């Protein structure tokens, strides 16, 4: 009598273990069910051990337009492309804040595309969600959620129909932070890649292989700019202040593409902001670094491989000359970058050897140090687009006349002379496209 019943330790431990197991299962489910588009690019950045000197931020123009591994090869600069699709400047600012939790970059390069946007994120909010999916719950992520979702412009955009009700419904702090709330219904579309994700090996860049001739616009005067009070430009200033505080050099760019009037005005305004903030601004719209006839991937004017390599090379020189960055090539601490670059080269060769489109093939050869022999029907070679792409190739070409309607291209490595590819394209002058590509086996290649 009078003895108090003791609580068995199992009565306390078991519920705790059960809750722990449940948490593990929920986290696992969240990882499997989440869309992989964002994490496959972000997770390698978070795990990058050698250290990143330069961080690239911006929109899909940056994703398509800057190749960190080319930068490594040419200048020994380590960098990562953390740009994301339709990333407005506010979103880029918060990606930068998240990135600082994993890396200490010396230089941040922000592209000012979409800085004229009044919304803090894309009108398709899932795109912003994708950029943050990989980052675990943290004070920074909560602050990002609170800031990005507290958008004064949203009611106006909803009213004007620029943001749909369905999109507004996805703008919730809860699902931004716990994305299982958003992605749980993806059980219907799971593939093997959801269980064993194939992580990006190109340091965040996209290898865009199409060749398109986009619409071109008249250039407007530099004096035409947007007024004040646009959220995007305020976030450039915020980023500049933050970079100053952290001793990081901020460079503002506007990557090249045939920009319309609004986009040119956007770049002009960015130039003013950069001047006021004392930030270097590289406006590619007013330079001739790329050729829009050969260097665009789509009609939306994103850069293809050829364009990206030109822009990367230009930026690399600027960074090497102006930012005091070390050349890490040959440094054993950066051995993984050598390995990654070799893998990138292998990827490029695979892409070249699998290609069956003459336009794309010529574009892919543009900046590669190969020995190239071409046997071509002169009529095909003189076709306007083929001719532009032919002229775009920087390596020396051994040219001879080939069979009518065909272009045979033999690609060899410059060092050992081994054959990379030997392919014959049959080209239709009427349809302006290659209708067949036949590859010659090793033995049948040119002597």
């Amino acid at each position, binding site marked *: 009598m009078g003895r108090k019943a003791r609580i068995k330790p199992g009565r306390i431990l078991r519920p705790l273990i*059960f809750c722990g197991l449940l948490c593990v299962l929920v986290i696992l489910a969240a990882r499997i069910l989440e869309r992989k588009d964002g994490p496959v690019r972000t997770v390698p950045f978070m795990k990058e051990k050698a250290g990143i000197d330069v961080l690239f931020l911006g929109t899909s123009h940056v994703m398509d337009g800057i190749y960190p591994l080319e930068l490594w090869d040419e200048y020994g600069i380590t960098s990562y492309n953390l740009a994301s699709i339709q990333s407005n400047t506010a979103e880029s600012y918060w990606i930068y804040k998240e990135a600082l939790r994993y890396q200490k970059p010396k230089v941040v390069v922000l592209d000012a595309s979409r800085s004229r946007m009044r919304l803090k994120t894309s009108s398709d909010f899932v795109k912003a969600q994708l950029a943050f999916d990989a980052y675990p719950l943290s004070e920074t992520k909560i602050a990002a959620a609170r800031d990005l979702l507290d958008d004064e412009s949203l009611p106006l955009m909803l009213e004007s129909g620029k943001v749909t009700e369905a999109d507004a419904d996805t703008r919730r702090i*809860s699902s931004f932070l716990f994305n*299982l709330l*958003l992605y*749980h219904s993806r*059980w219907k579309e799971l593939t093997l890649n959801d269980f064993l994700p194939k992580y990006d090996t190109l340091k965040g860049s996209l290898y865009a292989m199409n060749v398109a001739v986009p619409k071109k616009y008249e250039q407007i005067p530099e004096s035409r700019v947007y007024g004040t009070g646009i959220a995007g430009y305020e976030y450039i200033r915020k980023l500049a202040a933050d970079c100053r505080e952290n001793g990081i050099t901020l460079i503002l760019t506007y990557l090249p593409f045939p920009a319309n009037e609004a986009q040119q005005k956007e770049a002009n305004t960015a130039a003013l902001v950069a001047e006021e903030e004392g930030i270097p601004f590289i406006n590619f719209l007013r330079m001739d670094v790329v050729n829009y006839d050969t260097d665009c991937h789509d009609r939306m004017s994103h850069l293809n491989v050829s364009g990206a390599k030109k822009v990367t090379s230009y930026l690399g020189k600027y960074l090497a000359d102006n930012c005091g960055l070390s050349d890490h090539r040959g440094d054993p601490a950066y051995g993984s970058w050598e390995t990654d670059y070799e893998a990138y080269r292998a990827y490029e060769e695979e892409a070249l050897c699998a290609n069956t489109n003459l336009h794309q093939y010529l574009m892919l050869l543009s900046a590669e140090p190969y020995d190239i022999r071409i046997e071509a029907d002169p009529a095909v070679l003189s076709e306007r687009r083929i001719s532009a792409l032919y002229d775009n190739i920087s390596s020396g070409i051994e040219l001879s006349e080939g069979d009518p309607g065909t272009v045979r291209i033999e690609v060899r490595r410059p060092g050992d002379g081994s054959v990379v590819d030997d392919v014959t394209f049959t080209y239709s002058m009427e349809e302006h496209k290659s209708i067949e590509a036949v590859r010659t086996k090793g033995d049948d290649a040119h002597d």
Partner: protein
Amino acid sequence: MIGMSYISFSFLLFLAVLMTLYLLMPSVRLRQIILLAGNLVFYICAGGRSLLAILIATTFIVYAASRLMGRVYEGFESETAAKELKPKEKSQLLASYRKRAKAVLIPSLVIVLGILVYGKAGKLIGFPETSDFSSLAGAGFRAVMVPLGISYYTFSAVGYLLDIYWRKTKAEKNPLLLLLSMTYFPVIIQGPISRYDRLMKQFGELPGFSYERVTFGLQRAVFGFFKKLVLADRISAFPAAVFGNIQEHSGLLVVLAVCANAVHLYMDFSGCMDIVIGISEALGVTLDENFSQPFFSKSAAEFWRRWHITLGSWFKDYVYMPIATSKFMMNRTSAIRKSGKKRLASFTAAAVPLIVVWILTGLWHGTGADYLLWGVYWGVLIILETAFAPEWKKLAAYLHTEPDRPLPGFLRMVRTFVYFCFGRMITALGCAGSALIILRRIFSGSGAREFIDGSVFTYGVDAKDFAVIAAGLFICFLVSIWQTKMHIRERIAKMALPVRWAVYLAGIMAVVIFGVYGPGYSASSFVYGAF
């Protein structure tokens, strides 16, 4: 306004905080205070903030009336205790006291029911809804105020007052217990319609933490979430798509939509009941059951004893029985019986109260003509079933069949399901001619094309959804069968730990993964939430 519902993320957070605080409280009084605070927070967050005053005022009226009637009967009891009275004298004395109690009861009922009737009738004649008194007055009372859960707490309050008047229960002296009952968050939105005397007794003895009770309660709530989020909200898209464009569809597709509509309602409503009864169980308060495998019913009357049980039982106790035992009905049926028409007398005795009950049941569900028709449909069906029961028996005997044997029993269950589906057809399109329109579409073609070319999967429920629904319904069917034979949760609790944890985790993860919730999908509110 948060707009908290039982299936919202905010509700889960609210529940976690409330349960933790509540279960940590060392005394009954502290648990009562925490629970009352929780009730009020929930009511405000669920959208009842501006009309909380009406709920509190109703509670005050019910408390005052119950206490006044209680005092009247206390007077009667002390007088009978003081005097030695013969039964007849006692009965006469009680009648005089009852008159005094009635003088309290009638005005209180008029006020409490008046708010409900004004709201329902006002909506019927098209008055707009408002949530503040100034705009109500400004509109010259040509607007209505409908507090959240009014149908549920009004019925419970009326039942409580009548029980005191009939001396079935005693008036509670502690106003806190009545306020707890009238605002109790698990039942305020969708019931079950509670008997306040039973609730108040439990609130007076709120128990502390019990591992078994909390886990059992939460397990039941998880099963409720499964029914609501995995099944009901997934199924609902199909009838909505077909009925939304009914003129374009025919035959089998419409039949499937009608069946889906019926199953959706069951999963939605019974799922919600499992959630609220489970949560209440975890808090230590046992609520009345509202469902008892209704689709296993072999007749319409049995169906309504197993479907929305608390509503049926309320109507039986407070409408059917008072009418059936009223002097008027007794005199009428007795006169008919005396004229030699015994069968007509028993028919009248059952039919008159039944038709009143069913008209009121229809109006309770909705104020449109379709709901009135729906009520009459069920009333007539049950009356006919009762009236022709002897003929059915004779027919069974003639055919040498036992109605309760497996095959006839199963066919009777199917028949009851058809009754139910037809009832749903009456209100499915929101107009009086709803059932006729649907019937016409069913018989206007085979509708087989959609099943052959696969377009049946394009009405908001694709093939994978159908697979989940089929698996989920099979699980619910098994659970329903097992429920008739055992206490499932106790049985699972006796299994080896890895097995039972696997069952629990599978249940929770099924809701997490297959539940229809979150952004991109506007989870429909519970069907029974707007009464």
